[in-house]
Every structure is written in C-alpha cells, then in structure tokens.
C-alpha cells in the first residue's frame, strides 16, 4: 500500500484535489483554514493507494497548537517506514505564498527518502486570464517534478495520478539546504516565475474597494447580513410548509390503518406528535448551511472577518471569531470546529464562551412554537412587516447581543494574556461559488441533523410517551408516572409560572433543545387523545400559557446551554472538562435568573 500526502498552504485547493482523487466530499471553501483534521480516502483509480488531506500550513514553524498537530502528523508520516509520496499543492495564482513551505517539505522528504512532487493547482485561472507561467523553468529551478492541474475542471488530474503512483525518490537538490538558504531560494524562484501583471490582484482590489470601503463596506455588510437572516426565514418557509403538509398527510393516511389501541396511540402521539413536530425545521437548516457555504466560497466571509475585527476586539474576541459565530447561527457544533483556525487560545476560549449563546437552529422550533402561541399573526407598519417575524428578529438580536456581552465580561474576568494576538488573514480571491459541492454539503448537514437529532428525539419521545401513558393506559395524564416525575421538578419552574408539563419538556431538552417541541407534542397529544389532532400551538394556547411564562421560556432558551453534544465537544476542544462544566452551570443559573426577572417584569403589565 502506498500513501499519498497532500500538503500545502491554506486555501491552495488540497481538499478540492483530494475530492477529485478519491471521489469523496471533503469540505472545500474559499477561506483559509477550512480543513482541520487529517483525513484520508482510497485513490479512485487504484484503491491500493491511500490519499491523505492535510490541514493547510504556511510553514513548518507552527504558531498555534493546531498547526503543530498538523505538522507533527506530517513528520510522523514521513518518518513512517511504509512507502509514501509527498505532493505539495501550490496555488499557481499565488505561487509566492507556498514556496517557502514547499522547499522546507522538499528537504524533509529528501531526508526521509520519500519521493516529492509539486501539483501546481488552479491552472484554469491562469489560462482563463491568459497568464503564462514558465513550467519548464520552474521544474528546473525546483529540481522536482511539477504537474499542472486544475481541481475545478479536472484537467491534468489523470496525469497527476499516474505521476503519484509511479513516483520514486530521486536525488533532491534540497536535502542539505540550511534554513536561511531556503528562504532566499524561495524568494528567487518567486521573483522569476510568479505570473506578472498584477491582473488578478487589481481585479480583486476593485471589488474590495467597494466591499471594504469605509462607508460602502459598512452598508454592504449590513445589507448582506440582513439578506442572510431574511433568507433563513423567508426562503425556507415554502419548504417548511411542504414538509408540514407532507407529514400531516402521511399521518392522516397511516394512522387509520393501525388498529385502535395502544399501538395507534403510540403511533399518533409519539411518532407523529413528537418526531413530526421537529422534522418541519430541517429545511431551515438546509437553507442556512447553503447560504453560509455560498458566502464562504465567494470569498466574502474573509472580508467580513476583517470588517468585524475591531468591533469584536472590544468584546475580547477577534475578526477570526466572526466565521465561528456566524456558523453558530446554524449549529454550535460546526461553530466550535471552525474556531480551530484561531491561533490564540485566549481568543478561542472567549469564542467558545460566546458560541452557545448564538441563536442556533435547534432553538428555532422552540421560538417558532412559542411565537405562534403568544404573538397574534397581525402586521405592523401598514402591513409591511409581520409582528411574529419582528419578534423572531428581536429574539435573535437578544441572543447575539448577550453572546457579545458575556464574552466581554468573561474576557475581563479571565486571565489576561499580556499581548494581544496578531491578526494575519490571507484574503482569498473572489470566486463564483462552486454550487454543487455546497448543495451536497447542505444535504449532508440536514441528513446528519435528522439522523443525530432524530434518534435522540425519537428515544426521548418514546420514553416520555411511555411514562405518560402508564400506569393507566393514557386515561389520566395527571396521574401518570410522568406527572410524578414532574412534581419533583415543579419547585424549580413554578416561580416562572410553568407547570410540570413544561418542566418535563425543559428537562428533556437538555439532551438537545429541539426535544422540547417533540416532548410537549407527545404530552399534549396524550392529554388530548380524544380531540381531533390539532397542531401543538393550538393545544398550548388552549391550556392557557400566560404571556409572562411564555416570555420566561423564550429567555430561558436563549441563554441555557441545553445540548449534550455542545458540552461534550467544548470539553474536548478546550481540553478542559472543567471549562465546559462551568459554562453549563453558569448559563443554567443565568438563564433561570433572567427568565425569573422577565417573568416578573411581564407580569406587571
């Protein structure tokens, strides 16, 4: 078996090439530092060869823990006895940025007697702009094979595959070159072979002068972010309606087929009441991932990070926190992973503190349900805006503001790192987003969500249904085991004006927030078993949830860290279980206090 190691500077197209070579779908995006783990897959044309996709690094001198991990992984792969070929991926349009690293790795490869070659990627862009590059000259100067490829079009990939399979260690001119000479040589090669004309830089600068201009940049940022949030709600609305109609139709068709009795009850209350209530929100997650992916691949998110650097640094964060925080609007899990690109541990911890407060999509079902119950479906400002939509935006805004405020307080309390971390961010070229892989990734994310959340929600609804249905066969919910459990936790939620049914649902939602909706669906389903199947919101309204308690619930959900996966991942990524536990506890206490305050305040009116 042979290993192919794909290494190179960030954003040079390693993952795109990896996907070409293996047929897999690793995440590709136009933002430096997307790949965070070494991943592998079999070469498509010869499955005996294993291809490895490395995180991008600018040099063998790591400046953060994560880079060190990637570099150590490369070193141990080189030290390994088994045959391996090192493929250095260089971005032909930005040749200079990868050359130092290229020569450093060429030297290491030569020392461990591993063949080394260069895959000169993004050749399609050079061709498209009629920019020439002296390939033979470059080969001669580097003293290693250089293969022109384009991961976008697939040109040259076949030849590259053959070269990778047949590569053998040759005499390398770099085996004994000292560090100082490596830098100088990289410089000389760059000076000689980098495509001249600054055509690419100038085009990019023209767009940047708009998107980063003092006034126009701010306006563009606000417009893009407004469209972003609008799209999450308006674009996904028809999809959500479709899913809802489908589930209702399926229920109406299937439920009568099941013979009456315990199975029919279970089917209707737990499966359609619980699981169906949450599946409606899957389209939103899809749309959200799609838009973030498109923004990322266009190159804009790197600009947004730059724009936000100063404002975020007031809150103890950095411009590099922007992408993690924005991803947090979808889900805390990818957000926590995205924070790996931040080199300063202090800033990363502060980003971790802020992420759980970002209004993630798991909260959306909860907010949507409560808004339907509490806010009349009427319009404001002469029919221009709906009150329900306005309140939803308000809740989102509240979440984001509290995330920033908490980060700011935490960074002032925490151990202060003497020197502020440097901000160095490569600005990628603008590109038309490559839409197919983005759609693919969004479908994956939605599927993953259904799988992961679906199995948790299913288990919880089954347990809740079981506890609520017995010991009296669903006759009297208030005499069920569930009600007994509810009375134990009653004292905690009574001050918020919430009865035991909400207490149980909140308790269950610490597994994952969206479980709240499914659990309530099951509980109210059992309780109203004799009624026509009515939407959950209607049943809650009938049960008489007060405005004060509803508001308290919303506030509780914006702050509390109710998500087992987030806590587990925080513990792992911060390498501190104590940190994750402290966050969990503090947010719980804070959420309860804020909910209590809001309950008292709203009760006054």
């Amino acid at each position, binding site marked *: 078996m042979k290993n192919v190691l794909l290494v190179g500077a960030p954003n040079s197209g390693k993952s795109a090439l990896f996907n070409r070579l293996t047929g897999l779908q690793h995440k590709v995006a136009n933002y430096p530092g997307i790949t965070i783990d070494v991943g592998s897959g079999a070469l498509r044309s010869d499955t005996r060869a294993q291809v490895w996709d490395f995180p991008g690094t*600018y*040099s063998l*001198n790591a*400046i*953060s823990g994560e880079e060190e991990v990637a570099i150590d992984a490369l070193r141990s792969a080189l030290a390994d006895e088994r045959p391996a070929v090192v493929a250095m991926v260089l971005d032909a*349009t*930005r*040749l*200079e*940025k990868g050359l*130092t*690293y290229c020569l450093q790795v060429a030297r290491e490869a030569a020392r461990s007697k591993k063949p080394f070659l260069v895959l000169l990627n993004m050749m399609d862009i050079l061709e498209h702009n009629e920019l020439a590059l002296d390939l033979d000259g470059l080969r001669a100067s580097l003293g290693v094979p250089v293969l022109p490829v384009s991961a976008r079009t697939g040109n040259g990939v076949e030849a590259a595959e053959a070269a990778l399979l047949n590569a053998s260690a040759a005499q390398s001119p770099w085996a004994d070159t000292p560090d100082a000479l490596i*830098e100088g040589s*990289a*410089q000389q090669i*760059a000076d000689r072979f*980098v*495509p001249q004309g*600054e055509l*690419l*830089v100038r085009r*990019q*600068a023209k767009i*940047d*002068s708009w998107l*980063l*201009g*003092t*006034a126009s*940049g701010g306006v563009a940022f606000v417009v893009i972010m407004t469209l972003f949030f609008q799209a999450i709600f308006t674009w996904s609305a028809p999809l959500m309606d479709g899913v809802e109609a489908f589930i209702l139709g399926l229920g109406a068709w299937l439920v009568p087929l099941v013979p009456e009795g315990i199975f029919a009850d279970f089917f209707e209350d737990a499966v359609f009441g619980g699981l169906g209530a949450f599946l409606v929100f899957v389209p939103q997650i899809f749309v959200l991932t799609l838009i973030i992916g498109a923004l990322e691949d266009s190159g804009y998110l*790197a600009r947004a990070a*730059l*724009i936000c*650097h*100063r404002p975020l640094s007031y809150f103890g964060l950095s*411009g590099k926190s922007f992408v993690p925080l924005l991803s947090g609007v979808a889900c805390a899990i990818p957000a926590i992973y995205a924070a790996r690109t931040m*080199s300063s541990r202090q800033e990363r911890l502060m980003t971790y503190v802020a992420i759980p407060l970002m209004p993630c999509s798991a909260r959306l079902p909860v907010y949507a349900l409560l808004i339907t119950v509490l806010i009349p479906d009427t319009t404001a400002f002469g029919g221009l805006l709906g009150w329900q939509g306005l309140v939803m935006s308000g809740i989102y805004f509240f979440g984001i503001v509290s995330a920033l405020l908490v980060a700011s307080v935490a960074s002032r309390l925490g151990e202060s790192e003497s020197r*502020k971390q*440097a*901000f*160095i*961010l*490569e*600005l990628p070229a603008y590109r038309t987003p490559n839409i197919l892989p983005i759609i693919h990734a969004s479908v994956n994310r939605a599927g993953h969500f259904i799988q992961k959340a679906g199995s948790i929600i299913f288990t919880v609804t089954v347990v809740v249904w079981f506890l609520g249905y017995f010991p009296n066969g669903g006759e009297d919910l208030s005499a069920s085991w569930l009600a007994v459990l509810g009375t134990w936790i009653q004292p905690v939620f009574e001050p918020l004006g919430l009865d035991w049914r909400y207490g149980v649902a909140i308790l269950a939602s610490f597994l994952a927030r969206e479980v709240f909706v499914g659990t309530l669906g099951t509980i109210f389903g059992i309780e109203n078993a004799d009624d026509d199947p009515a939407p959950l919101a209607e049943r809650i309204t009938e049960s008489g949830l007060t405005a004060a308690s509803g508001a308290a619930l919303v506030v509780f959900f914006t702050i509390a860290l109710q998500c087992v996966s987030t806590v587990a991942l925080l513990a792992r990524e911060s390498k501190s279980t104590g940190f994750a536990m402290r966050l969990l506890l503090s947010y719980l206490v804070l959420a309860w206090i804020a909910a209590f305050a809001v309950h008292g305040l709203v009760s006054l009116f």
Partner: protein
Amino acid sequence: MSLWSLSVGASASVSSVTGGTGNAAAQRLIDIGFRKGQTVSCLLQPGFGAPRVFALGNATYSLDKETADLVILTDDRPS
C-alpha cells in the same frame, strides 16, 4: 517607517521584520514572504482602524496595526 504607515496605492520594499525570533507573528510574516528586499503595497485602508489590506506579489493579506508595525520599510517609492 512601518508598513502600517504606507499610504493606499503606494509600494515600498521591506527592510526588516522586527519582533525577534520568539515572536510568532514576526515568524509567520517572514514565512509568508515579508522578507528583506520584497516589494509590498497597500491596497486598501478600511476606516475605523480596521485591519489594512496589503499585497505581496499576487497574494493579499490583511494585517492589524500591531502586526503591520512589525514590518519596517526602507523607503517610499510611488508606484
């Protein structure tokens, strides 16, 4: 003068990167090509103290003030 004081559209050549060998930011600047003799230009200065955009050959980087101040330029020649 430092890279931060380069005006928009101007370019100059790098004289040195200060900060010493222990400085991670300085090391990274050198690794990505901010080296003696290299020509850098300032492409953009967004307002409100935001990081500025610099071009080094065909690659572009945004650096905040503290980082750009590590790069010392020799002279200012109009491009």
